[in-house]
């Protein structure tokens, strides 16, 4: 078997809030020992509610935050957030949830896209410009957008820019932290399609963080459910959706709104009964 793109061994992260005079320091165990491997070209969805540690996990595997304990191997090479080499930074990139907050409002789109190249490669300015221009069209934007500022774009377009920026370095895997939860339904569909197309074209590996099970069902190969810092379930999409094993997974399923006709009919019938009785 080939080396997995990403291997995580017993990853832990504690946050310590500093104590005060006569007040002990408080420790929050955000991630409590997570292990998994991810093969090339696959999509792993990490599911859970806010505060379950999924974003902390994302920050650790993108080498932004250092884990308290545990190991991260990217393409078989041990990685540490303490000193990220240029090669490592080229292998892993992230797209954040809120496209309104993750782009510098004073930076033109062309510069947004070229900056990762300027920082991590030795390409000339002209090469960087060409690459940025090519990526712009790849994510469905126009060449004339090159010299515009982020505020001139809609939410969906901004998320395209954020994805383009993450892809500039040709990464081995991409961490997507709730990339569509701030978007409208129709725009969400466009972005999800774009992600699938890009995955096919570049052979990308995704770690897709979400709390929306319907999106996860559409995009994921494997599903990992987190609950209070622990992984409670990690199986293939089909297995998880066919028969959720853990109590918490079942709670998540029950909470997801159902939009099928039978469900609505049952709800209306219940309501009528209630009104009559």
């Amino acid at each position: 078997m080939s080396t997995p793109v990403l291997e995580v061994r017993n990853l832990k992260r504690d946050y310590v809030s500093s104590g005060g005079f006569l007040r002990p320091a408080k420790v929050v165990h955000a991630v409590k020992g997570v292990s998994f491997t991810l093969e090339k070209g696959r999509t792993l969805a990490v599911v859970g509610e806010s505060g379950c540690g999924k974003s902390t996990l994302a920050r650790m595997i993108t080498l932004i935050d250092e884990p308290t304990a545990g190991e991260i191997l990217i393409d078989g090479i041990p990685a540490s957030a303490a000193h990220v080499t240029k090669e490592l930074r080229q292998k892993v990139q992230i797209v954040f949830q809120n496209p309104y907050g993750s782009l510098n409002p004073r930076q033109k789109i062309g510069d947004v896209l070229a900056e990762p190249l300027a920082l991590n490669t030795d390409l000339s300015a002209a090469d960087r410009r060409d690459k940025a221009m090519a990526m712009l069209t790849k994510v469905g934007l126009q060449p004339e957008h090159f010299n515009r500022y982020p505020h001139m774009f809609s939410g969906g377009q901004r998320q395209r820019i954020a994805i383009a920026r993450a892809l500039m370095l040709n990464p081995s895997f991409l961490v997507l932290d709730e990339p569509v939860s701030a978007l409208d339904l129709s725009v969400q569909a466009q972005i999800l399609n774009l992600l699938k197309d890009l995955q096919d074209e570049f052979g990308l590996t995704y770690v897709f963080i979400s709390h929306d099970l319907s999106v996860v069902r559409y995009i994921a190969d494997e599903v990992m459910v987190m609950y209070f810092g622990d992984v409670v379930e990690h199986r293939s999409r089909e297995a998880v959706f066919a028969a959720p094993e853990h109590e918490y997974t079942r709670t998540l399923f029950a909470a997801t709104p159902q939009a099928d006709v039978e469900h609505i009919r049952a709800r209306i019938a219940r309501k009528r009964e209630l009104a009559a009785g």
Partner: protein
Amino acid sequence: MPLLDIKNLTVGFDTSAGLFKAVDGIDISVDPREVLAIVGESGSGKSVAMLATMGLLPSTATVTADRMTFEGRDLLGMSAAEKRKIIGKDIAMIFQEPVASLNPCFTVGFQLSEVLGKHLGLTGRVARDRSIELLQLVGIRDAADKLGAYPHQMSGGQCQRVMIAMAISCNPKLLIADEPTTALDVTIQKQILDLLVRLQAETGMALIMITHDMGVVAETADRVIVQYKGHKMEEADVLSLFENPKSNYTRALLSALPENAVGDRLPTVSDMLFEAAPGVR
């Protein structure tokens, strides 16, 4: 007689590029005890229509309507002082960002009793007892302790519960919920939706749910209005909307749901760019 009756509502904003019509000739009516959902994307004018009804738009907006009545009383011709007696009491509203809609400088208890004092004249002990009762009603544990809490000390779900408690404190006849669960997790969303539906059934108030989430519509609404770019695309009861959508836009919205994916691709709204409805650019 409908509780709220709006005919041909138009809301325009003066912009540097001329008049922009956010809402263009929309009719909305809600009966007592009814749950109406208004669905649309950002920019479809769904929130603006309701803010216009509440009189909460800035002065740059021009609101015109052939008719806008609440319980038969004309909301348009009414003086501001008269309107204030209805708004916040008989018509209440909750907003999308619960943490941002509460005042960060005051405790939850203060903000709740302010509403009770202004509209119902309750003060002191009586207001405090009623506040505790309201917080218990919306499912906040240790209600008495939470009266002294500031919004930042509570989670998003708890803040939304406080917003709901404030909104129902005067037993409104109509509650407008503007994307009440968009900022919340699925599990919390479920709790808040259940709470709203339960309160609606218990108190018999009418409820307008503004949302872009078809799942939320399916879980709560009796009747649905679909809006696009300030125009009404379709109006139907919830079952026929999902079973047999009449407008192409509704069909496009429904097929963009990830669970309705056909094969490997999601159909998007622009894929099925519909033959423009009359008046829509």
